[in-house]
């Protein structure tokens, strides 16, 4: 099962990561709606039920609270369940189990219990979908102590991060950039995790000197393209993929902003109360004397996700990122 394709889509990279994790540890389970024969609506678990059986890849009844709640019970029995939430907008029925049980069990038990549960959530818009299929709820989880919240931005990271998340003894909310599922990069399936960047570290994907652009998930590619465009205009943008949304890799973020003196945070979620608020608040405080302009936030508007025919106007794109960069320099 290890023909190692040089280039993989993000969906396939996750699939290979899950497969590797299941091969390495018989306690790893996959559970969710349509994750079996169908392989998930995005094919992330494609072929895994066939190879690992129905006891390890479970097509569950249709209820998210039940999925996460029983995953907690399985974890208490020594398993490492990976739950798939079919779409971002459908994680809310499981919110109580995630916030009051999954996040708090270790604390409640003073460390006697650990819940190594991963909740995978395809998130974000840009795929022309109907309501509830384009949400970006990451900030809601980042506010909850006890959870680790991460987002992968490209296939190579996805392959390593999903395995790291499964190996992590803490509950991990794992966000996958839906509209990037079919993006391809080289993935080293042979190389182990030893070389991989730790799950809680940010990654500088483009080094620059003039302004720091912080992003994650689907916005990473957008910001990298923005950096390229800006470069051609002689402006040097440093792009950092946060990867870990909670906890934040403050060290990497602050170091960059203190160098560049300017900061723009980009995400699809509404700016109001979004993750960018937490990032901006911390950067504004910790880099107060270094900032030549306020931290600017680029994101969705303070509206529900709009009908798909106008979603391109709602979602931050290369132009809106560059527009924010320009505004940062206008101060």
């Amino acid at each position, binding site marked *: 099962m290890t023909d190692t394709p040089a280039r993989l889509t993000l969906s396939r990279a996750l699939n290979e990561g899950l497969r590797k994790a299941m091969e390495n540890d018989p306690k790893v389970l996959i559970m969710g709606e349509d994750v079996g024969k*169908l392989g998930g609506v995005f094919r992330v678990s494609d072929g895994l039920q066939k190879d690992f059986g129905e006891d390890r890849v479970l097509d569950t009844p249709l209820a998210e609270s039940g999925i996460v709640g029983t995953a907690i019970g399985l974890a208490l029995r020594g398993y490492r369940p990976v739950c798939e939430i079919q779409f971002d907008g459908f994680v809310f029925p499981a919110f109580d189990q995630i916030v009051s049980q999954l996040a708090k069990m270790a604390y409640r038990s003073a460390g006697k219990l650990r819940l190594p549960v991963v909740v995978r959530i395809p998130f974000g818009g840009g795929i022309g*979908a*109907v309501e509830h299929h384009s949400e970006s709820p990451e900030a809601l989880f980042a506010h909850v102590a006890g959870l680790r919240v991460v987002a992968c931005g490209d296939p190579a990271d996805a392959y390593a991060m999903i395995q790291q998340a499964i190996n992590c003894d803490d509950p991990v909310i794992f966000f996958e950039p839906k509209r990037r599922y079919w993006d391809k990069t080289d993935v080293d399936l042979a190389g182990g995790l030893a070389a991989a960047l730790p799950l809680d570290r940010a990654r500088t994907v483009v080094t620059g000197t003039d302004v720091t652009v912080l992003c994650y998930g689907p916005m990473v590619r957008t910001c990298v393209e923005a950096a390229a465009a800006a470069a051609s205009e002689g402006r040097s943008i440093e792009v950092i993929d946060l990867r870990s949304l909670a906890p934040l890799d403050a060290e990497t973020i602050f170091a960059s902003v203190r160098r560049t003196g300017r900061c723009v945070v980009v995400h699809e979620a509404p700016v109001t109360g979004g993750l960018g608020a937490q990032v901006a608040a911390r950067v504004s405080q910790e880099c107060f004397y270094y900032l030549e302009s306020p931290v600017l936030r680029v994101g969705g508007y*303070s509206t529900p996700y709009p009908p798909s025919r106008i979603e391109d106007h709602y979602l931050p794109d290369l132009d809106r990122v560059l527009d924010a960069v320009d505004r940062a320099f206008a101060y």
Partner: protein
Amino acid sequence: MAVKAAGRAASRSRTHDKPTAKPELIQLLTPEGERTEHPDYPLELTPDEIKALYRDLVLVRRIDFEAIALQRQGELGIWASLLGQEAAQVGSGRALAPRDMAFPTYREHGVAWCRGLDPAKLLELYRGVSHGGWDPKEHNFHLYTIVIGAQTLHATGYAMGIQRDGAVGEDGEAAIVYFGDGATSQGDVNEAFIWASVYNAPVVFFCQNNQWAISEPLERQTRIPLYQRARGFGFPGVRVDGNDVFACLAVTRQAMQAAREGQGPTLIEAFTYRMGAHTTTDDPTRYRLSAELESWKLKDPIERVKQYLIRSAMAQEDFFAGIAAEADEVGTRTRKACLEMPDPDPLSMFDNIYAEPSALLAEERAQLDAYLSSFASEEVGR
């Protein structure tokens, strides 16, 4: 301390029938088109009424067919086909009085038709020009709900409102809520059963068991027939042949009338089959056998009515030809309306979020406006 579990084991095995077993399947028209009688569900229909039902069935299938084509051609983002469920939807839909309120999922195109909704309205959501598209009060047909099961609580609450309005009685009102077999696993749906039974609310739970929840067969949701779920909550549950428009009409009518008169909720399981893909983005070949599909084709909800009309000499070729022609017209009209749908104004994104104006939204709206015109001017500039 000895325990004897044997006797128990026995009683245990008695505790349930397989979910796909067909006990008490209420049927008034066989797949072959033969009219049968059921003591509890007398139904008298005039030839015109039967022809009207046939027309509904054919037209909604045609509208569905057109929508699938539109999606293939890129005019719709996605479509959830009702193919195979026409009888369940038309039978139940025609059992409703105008004053009753219906709460659909995303697949109730046939019910929408019966409520008098312009089919084009249904396309807006799937084309991505709106999240809803129609005024629920106009036809007493609520907006499509995509979050599985959520609408069952809305319908139950609405029914509690009917009670508080004193609109229960001989010519009272009732609500009906549609949901699928998969939805029965959601906490919300079971909570709706609890509220409805505790308050004896005038609501009918209409579950279209089309055997599949995307790729998951019924066995993943229950180990007994779904209509029996109601037993656990203390209200009647009944399984009807979901491909028999007569039976769906009779059973729904009786449940609605019982609700209107203050007899409380009923769970109706319409035993049917999803003949197409879950949606246009789904690929059923990955998870189900065509043999199953073939066996259900023999139970087609439309063909049996046609056979009945022919046998009983209620309709001749010209009638069927007329309906076919009308279907094409409706299809063409629907397509035309779809193609003519304008994209929404980007700035409309900020509308209707709050009843009262919001400074923040006004500010963001102005930002986007300025941003968009900056490009416009650039264009001009060039």
